[in-house]
C-alpha cells in the first residue's frame, strides 16, 4: 500500500470520527460538510437561468407574438408590451443582487447593443473569445483576493429564438447585424464568491 493511500484512509477515518462526534443524531444534515467544485455549482445555476429564459421566450413571448396578442419590446416599461428575453434575465439578476444572495450574473458580448454589456475585464474578453471558439464548455477562472475573491464562469449564449436575431439584426445600436439562429451572440457570466 502506497504512502498516499495510507494517508487517504487516515484522513477518511479522521473525517468520519469528526462527523460522528460533531453532529448530534437528532439534528438534520445541513449540507455544510460536503463540498462540490464551484464549476459544478455554476453549471447548475446556468441550467436554471437558461431554462427560465427559454420557458419565458417560448411559452410567453413567441406564443403571444404569434397569436398577435402582445409583443415584446425594449421600452416595455413605458408601453403595453412584454420585456425582451434578455431584459427578463437582467431584471432577475438585479433582483438577486438586491437581495444580496452572493451570486451575480449578467449578459456580455463582443457586439453589445448596450455598451454596459461589453467585456469589463481581460478575463471577460478572453472568455468571450474562448466560448465563441468552443461553445460546449464554459471558460472559468478565479479573480480578486480576500473578501472579493470570486469564481467566474463564462457560458456561450446562443440565439435560441427568432426574437433574439430579429432585434439584434435591426437595432440601430447593434454593432453586428448578420446573426443567424443558433449563433453564439455572447455569453452568460456567472460570478460566485469564494469564501476566504
Amino acid at each position, binding site marked *: 500500500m502506497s504512502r498516499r493511500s495510507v494517508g487517504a484512509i487516515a484522513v477518511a477515518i479522521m473525517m468520519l470520527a469528526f462527523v460522528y462526534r460533531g453532529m448530534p443524531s437528532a439534528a438534520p444534515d445541513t449540507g455544510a460538510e460536503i*463540498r462540490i467544485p464551484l464549476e459544478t455549482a455554476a453549471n447548475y445555476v446556468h441550467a436554471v437561468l437558461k431554462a427560465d429564459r427559454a420557458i419565458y421566450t417560448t411559452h410567453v413571448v413567441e406564443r403571444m407574438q404569434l397569436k398577435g396578442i402582445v409583443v415584446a419590446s425594449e421600452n416595455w416599461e413605458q408601453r403595453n408590451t412584454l420585456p425582451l428575453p434578455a431584459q427578463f434575465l437582467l431584471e432577475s439578476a438585479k433582483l438577486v443582487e438586491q437581495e444580496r444572495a452572493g451570486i451575480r450574473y449578467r449578459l456580455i458580448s463582443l457586439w453589445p447593443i448596450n455598451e454596459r454589456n461589453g467585456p469589463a475585464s481581460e478575463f471577460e474578453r478572453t472568455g468571450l473569445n474562448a466560448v465563441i471558439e468552443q461553445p460546449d464548455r464554459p471558460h472559468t477562472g478565479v479573480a480578486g483576493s480576500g473578501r472579493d475573491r470570486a469564481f467566474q464562469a463564462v457560458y456561450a449564449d446562443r440565439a435560441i429564438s427568432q426574437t433574439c436575431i430579429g432585434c439584434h439584426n435591426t437595432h440601430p445600436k447593434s454593432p453586428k447585424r448578420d446573426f443567424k439562429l443558433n449563433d453564439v451572440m455572447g455569453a452568460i457570466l456567472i460570478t460566485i464568491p469564494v469564501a476566504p
Partner: protein
Amino acid sequence: MRHKKLVRGAAVLVLVGAASIGPKPAETAGPSPSIPLDAVADYIHAVIQADREIYTKNVVERLQAKGILVASENWQEANTLPLPAQFLADSAHLVSKKSSIRYRLLSLWPINARNAPTTEFERTGLAAVITDPTRPYTGFMETGGKYYFQALYADRAVSQTCVGCHNAHQDSPKRNFKQNDVMGGILITIPASQ
C-alpha cells in the same frame, strides 16, 4: 427513497475526502475551488425565486392590471399566460432534461395531488418550514445507488395571483390563504457526489 441521514452523509464525505487527495489532474492546475452543498442550494433557490418573481410582477400582474392579458391554469388552450407555479414547474421539467439537479413545488394543501409530500422527509420538512420559514429543512437521501442533498425552502404567497387562485380553485384543500402566508415549499435536490 430512504433517509439514513448521518451514515449516508458520513459515507459521502469519506468518498469526497478520499477523492480530494488523489492524484491531481495536472501539475499546473491548482486545487479546484469548492463550495458546500447548502450554499449551492441557496444560490439555486435564489435564482428560481427571482425568475418567478420577475415573471409574476413584470409580466403577469402588470398585464392583468392593464387589462391586456390574464394568467390561467389552462393557458395552453386559452389565449392566456401560464400561472407562476406552472412557469416554475415547466422550467424544472426543462432543467431535469439537461442537468442532474431537480426542483419542484410541494404543499400540505396542493391543488394537484401530485404536489403533495411523498416521503417522510418532505412531510417533516413542510411542517418545519411552516414553523420556521427563515431557513431551509435539509437532509440526504439515496435513490438508485446515488446520494443526493435535499433542501426544502418555505414558499410564500408572493402575489395576489397565488392567493386568488388557491382560495377560489375547486380542488384547493385550503381557501383562507393571505398574502405572504407560507403556502408550501420549493424542494431542491442536488447530487452529493461527483
